[in-house]
C-alpha cells in the first residue's frame, strides 16, 4: 500500500513554509516508523520529518532547495501490507 508523506499543518497561527535541505532516506531504502526521512529548515530552526509508517521509500516528490508548504506531499512510502 502506498502511503503519501505530507508536511503537517502545525496550526492556524503559523505560516508553515520550509525549505528542503536534504533527503535523509534514499530511494529504495527501508524505513521504520519514526525514522527521519527528510531535513527541512525554517527561519527558526532545522527540522526532520519522521516517517509515519514502516516500509520502503519509493518516491521523493520534492528536492533540495525546494520550498514546501503545509499539506504538501513530500514522498511516498510503500508499506508491506497490501
Amino acid at each position: 500500500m502506498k502511503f503519501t508523506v505530507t508536511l503537517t499543518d502545525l496550526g492556524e497561527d503559523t505560516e508553515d513554509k520550509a525549505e528542503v535541505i536534504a533527503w535523509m532516506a534514499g530511494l529504495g531504502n527501508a524505513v521504520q516508523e519514526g525514522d527521519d526521512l527528510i531535513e527541512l529548515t525554517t527561519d527558526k530552526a532545522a527540522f526532520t520529518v519522521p516517517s509515519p509508517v514502516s516500509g520502503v521509500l519509493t518516491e521523493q516528490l520534492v528536492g533540495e532547495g525546494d520550498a514546501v508548504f503545509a499539506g504538501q506531499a513530500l514522498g511516498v512510502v510503500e508499506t508491506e501490507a497490501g
Partner: protein
Amino acid sequence: MTRSFPEWIRRPWGSGTAFGQTKALLGDLGVKTVCQSARCPNQGECWSCRTATFMILGTTCTRNCRFCSVRHGVPEPPAPDEPERVAEAVARLGLRHAVVTSVTRDDVEDGGAGHFRRTIEAIRARNPEATVEVLTPDFNGARESVAAVLGAGPDVFGHNVETVERLYPVVRGAGHAYRRPLDVLRLARDLGGGTVVKSAFMLGLGETDSEVERTLADLLDAGCQAVCIGQYLQPTAAQCTVHEFVSPERFRHYEATARRMGFDAVVAGPFVRSSYRSGELLETVRGVRAASGEGEED
C-alpha cells in the same frame, strides 16, 4: 534565503497520530497555544506527547517585543468562556501539570489578571489533581494584578526576564526597563505564600558570561527558585538576529553555575523554553523544600 543551523538546532516536525489528536482537540475547543503563536520548535515533540502550553487573552499582543513573533495589534476583548475551555482541554489531554501564559493586554484595566485567576480556578475545579503554572506578562508592575493571580493559588508563578540588563532595551524595545520583571518576581515572592517563583531568559543575543551570572544573581535576589535558560531563535526576518548559537556544553556550564549559586531547580539547553519540563521542575523544587523542612504544601 536559507538559514543554516548547527547540528544541535534540529527538531522533529510535528506529525503522527498523537500530534494530530492534540491538534484536533485544541482546535475543537478553540483553545490557543503559545506553541503555535510563537512558532515553538518543540511543538512536534510536545504535541506528540499530548502536552501544550495554553495562551489566554487572545493571540494579539499590545506590545511588540523584538524577539517575539506573536502578532502585535489591537486585541479582541477577552473571551468570557475561555477559562472553561482551557480547563476542558487540560482534562481531555489528561495533563497533570497545566501551563498557562498570555499575550500582554495593556488595553485591559487589570492587564488580564482576573482572567488568569478565573482560568486557574476553572482548571482546578475541572482537574483537582493537576498542578497549575502561570507565565504572566508584567501587568505594568501592578501589585494588585500580581496579587489577583496569586490569589488563585497557582503552584508556579513565572515571569520572564528574557535577557541580560544591557540587552534588555534592545530585545524588549525602547522604554522597557530590566528592573520591571525583577520587581514583578519580587512581588510574587512577597505575596505568593508557597507558590514557586520562576523565570527564564534566552542566550545567543550577545550576552557575556559575567552578564549571565549577574542576571542569575538578580533573579535569586528577586526570589526566584527555578530558572530556565534556552537559545534565542529568530522566528522570522522581522525579529532580532541571532548573535550566536550557544553550544550544549555552555548550556551545561550555565546550568551548573545556576545550581551552585543556589537555585532549587534549573533547566538549560538549546531548546529549553519557559514551560519545558515544567512539571519536573516543580517536583524538583518541592523535593528541595521538603528536604530542607520548608514544605508548605498540604
